[in-house]
């Protein structure tokens, strides 16, 4: 165990050291991610100034909804950068190197590399939005709330991690899954910034049962905010995020274990 922690420390140190080789670039990259994502929020801000609310959600409640999305992604990408980039790792043949080292494969994928630029950009935006909105949406923070919040964030991280793991595993068969990721992850994520109750039933179905972003931010936000549109959904959905995360991750992990033996090394 001590040995494993030491290795994780070494991986992190190595990543950080490479990062500090280009300090200015590092700061600018994080800032660029932050601003790119913030632009979308600013557009919504000004739109909502004209409308007051969206299906009962005011601007601060919307920002709170967004903050969960960005915060979970920021944390997720610290651990799952290797899965995001797994396609290129396979194509370049670098995955062979992981196989040649006496450590778990998924362990190496997770800890060898972390995209701190994305983590700081997304996570920083998530925290900023949380700080702006949390005091203005009428949540009375207490121990229960806080514990709920922590578990639900962890669940949201696992849900997205599971999707990344699943898509990474498909690389073993297809070598290239970026367009699929764009289709089912990034496109659906655009819907996830809004209360899902405003969408057509088909989209809602997709957001709950297929790519369950609703459990990343909508239902957790509902637990804390209790908006009227929650009456459209079973109440239990507000408590399921950690369970959905664990189940999805487990399924993705089993798929990974099953698939890894079909790995074909790329030629020279």
């Amino acid at each position, binding site marked *: 165990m001590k040995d494993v922690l030491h290795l994780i420390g070494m991986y992190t140190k190595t990543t950080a050291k*490479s990062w500090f080789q280009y300090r200015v670039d590092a700061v600018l990259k994080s800032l660029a991610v932050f601003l790119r994502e913030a632009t979308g929020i600013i557009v919504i801000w000004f739109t909502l100034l004209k409308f007051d609310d969206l299906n009962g959600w005011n601007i601060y409640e919307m920002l709170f909804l967004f903050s969960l999305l960005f915060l979970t992604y920021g944390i997720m990408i610290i651990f799952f950068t290797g899965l995001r980039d797994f396609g290129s790792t396979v194509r370049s043949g670098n995955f062979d190197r992981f196989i*040649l080292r*006496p450590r778990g494969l998924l362990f190496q994928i997770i800890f060898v590399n972390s995209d701190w630029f994305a983590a700081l950009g997304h996570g920083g935006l998530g925290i900023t939005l949380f700080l702006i909105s949390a005091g203005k949406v009428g949540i009375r923070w207490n121990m229960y709330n806080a514990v709920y919040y922590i578990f639900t964030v962890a669940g949201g991280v696992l849900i997205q991690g599971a999707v990344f793991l699943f898509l990474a595993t498909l690389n073993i068969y297809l070598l290239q899954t970026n367009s699929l990721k764009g289709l089912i992850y990034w496109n659906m994520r655009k819907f996830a910034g809004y209360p899902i109750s405003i969408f057509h039933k088909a989209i809602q179905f997709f957001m709950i049962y297929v790519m369950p972003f609703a459990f990343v931010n909508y239902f957790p936000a509902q637990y804390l905010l209790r908006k009227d549109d929650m009456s459209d959904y079973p109440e239990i959905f507000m408590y399921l995020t950690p369970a959905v995360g664990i189940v999805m991750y487990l399924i993705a992990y089993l798929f990974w274990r099953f698939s890894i*033996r079909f790995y074909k090394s790329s030629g020279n």
Partner: protein
Amino acid sequence: MSFIEVKNVSKTFKISKRRSGVPGMLANLFVPKFEKKEAVKNIGFNIEKGEMVGFIGPNGAGKSTTIKMLSGILYPDSGEINVGGYIPYKQRKSYVGRIGVVFGQKSQLQWDLPVIDSFELMKAIYSVPDDVYKKNLSRFTEMLDMSGFIEQPVRQLSLGQKMRADIVAALIHSPEIVFFDEPTIGVDVVGKETIRSFIRELNEQDNVTMIFTTHDMQDIEKTCKRLIIIDEGSKVYDGTLSGIREKYGTSRQLDVEFGCMEDISSIDKVDIIELENNKKRFVFESRDVHINELMNHLLSNYSVRDINISEPEIESIIRRIYNKEVVEA
């Protein structure tokens, strides 16, 4: 039981076959067509502990696939592989700690960081004890003359320096077996010599088993006693380097310089090649043509100024094996 045992191993890859044009692209999408490529066909060999073996063969012959199966990266489709009591692809984690792999074309060093940082990372990955690490590091850096650049970022190193650093990175955990996949590719003559003598020394002093693939015959000649030639997935030769001459190198060539332009159109079972300055080359199999008869014939019928007889070089024999021009003697 040998240290490394490979029995009847085969590996087939499925390669998707692309059709061209727009209809072809659509067809690829919906009805992908696959072609089977047998990368390795029924290969078998044994290697003893401490042996140094060179694998050679043309591009795509199956060398890399064989190395990848031996090192646990690929599962063979059929056959058995046993290395030092381990089945590489089944007992991966316990097995790979005992081997080192150098890919000449794929560095495992941290591009932006000083060389020493990559070594420290290897130490953590393989849980190398402090004293072993220090001993190996100081010994290898001295043998490979690396003290001058060990603190430099990898991106600033020359190709030869990088290769030396990569070799050390693969050896820092004292592996029992080392696989070298083209370890001298792109390295200059002096650098190649340093790497070869390092490999030789390590094999002699530590009894490390070494398996090479290379395209540079000099690598083999200067390091390995044993040679395995693979072509189109099959083993075509397994034996000593000198044995290859006895087995295949039965052709001889006779270069003759004549006093004037001679017109020798044909001699039975001898290939005649025109060279410049009234020189001709006569190539023949030593079992078909007696050399003294040929020389007598030339000396008595033509004015000969100079004569030179030579065996073919190893490299040209191997080229002819690849081209299927020679059969076993």
